[in-house]
């Protein structure tokens, strides 16, 4: 944040509360809407959803093939949901020589019902402006130093298609059961700012 002082503005708490009052009074917002929405969002829209999809893809070649053709259907198959305006989920497959990374340069769109709410850095102007133009440098700064031979594919979420990265399975985890595999899949790996190959068995 800059040091800009905006003392004349009412506090954010007051402004947010005022909007809630107006929506309750004049747009018939149910009394419990905020509490119920928040509980649902916090409980249902979590990184573990995408992690389960990834773990399933690692262990079930047919699911993996379906997922790469139609990510939306693959998510629904496991019971995960989308808001009305997330019309497509496209799954991007990392390989030994291809690395995918996602961003939204215009705002901060993400498949939040599948990979969880975007982290703060994903919404920062710095990440949004730089990862498209200096992808290799930004990834290195974030701890992912890719070989020069790795092809980087950047995906800018500028329409209502949402993306997630399918990371490569760490060799040390071959043979693990699905539920154990799901525990090693991080949100960063599905955004594409990290890879998982180094995970130890």
């Amino acid at each position: 944040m800059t040091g800009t002082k905006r003392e004349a503005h009412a506090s954010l708490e007051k402004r947010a509360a005022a909007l809630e009052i107006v929506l309750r009074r004049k747009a018939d917002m149910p009394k419990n809407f905020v509490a119920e929405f928040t509980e649902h969002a916090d409980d249902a829209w979590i990184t573990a959803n995408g992690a389960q999809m990834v773990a399933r893809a690692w262990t079930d070649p047919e699911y993996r093939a379906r997922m790469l053709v139609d990510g939306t259907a693959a998510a629904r198959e496991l019971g995960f949901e989308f808001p009305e305006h997330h019309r497509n989920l496209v799954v991007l497959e990392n390989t030994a020589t291809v690395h995918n990374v996602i961003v939204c340069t215009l705002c901060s769109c993400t498949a939040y019902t599948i990979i969880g709410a975007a982290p703060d850095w994903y919404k920062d102007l710095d990440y949004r402006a730089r990862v498209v133009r200096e992808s290799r440098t930004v990834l290195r700064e974030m701890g992912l130093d890719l070989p020069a031979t790795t092809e980087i594919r950047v995906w800018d979420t500028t329409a209502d298609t949402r993306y997630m990265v399918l990371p490569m399975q760490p060799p040390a985890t071959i043979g693990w059961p699905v539920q154990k595999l799901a525990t090693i899949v991080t949100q960063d790996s599905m955004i594409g700012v990290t890879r998982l190959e180094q995970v130890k068995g």
Partner: protein
Amino acid sequence: MKYPSAPHNESWRPLVRALQAFAIETHICNMDEFRHAIERMTPRHYISAPYFERHLTAIATLLIEKGIATLEELESLVDGEFPLSGPLGPGRLPFAPQSFAIGETVRVKNEFVSGHVRVPAYIRGKTGTIVHASTPTPFPDAAGHNMQAEMEPTYDVRFRASDLWPDTSDEALNHVAVFQSYLEKVESA
């Protein structure tokens, strides 16, 4: 009117997230109107505002523009200043439908319009290849201005970073989801 005691103990961020969801779910506004209301914030306010303050400001602006609230009402509720986004300008309708194939080379129109537009500046006028087509969605330049927004496909278009930013970029394949109306055919030589 005095500001009432806080309705619950949530912090303001999840509250704003829920209010935004309610506004979208009940069609008080659509996502493009919401995004454009954020874009209409004054630059200094936009840059200095935390993420969810931008959401809050957009919702307040739209509630007033839709006739659900007045500024006086909001300011009396907060007993202070309630900054809003700037006024809504004209939008534009989609262009005549055209079709593109996977693998086809296309050019992004080099257009700069004042209203809501979902084509990032860095691909305008640039040439790329279509790698994926998605189901039709409302044309944002119309939807963001409460105009009749025809549905049209979006295409994932692949560009070379070195074509977008000669000499200054890390080499990569940059993919951008582009609405049909933003694209034009490239005549083969």
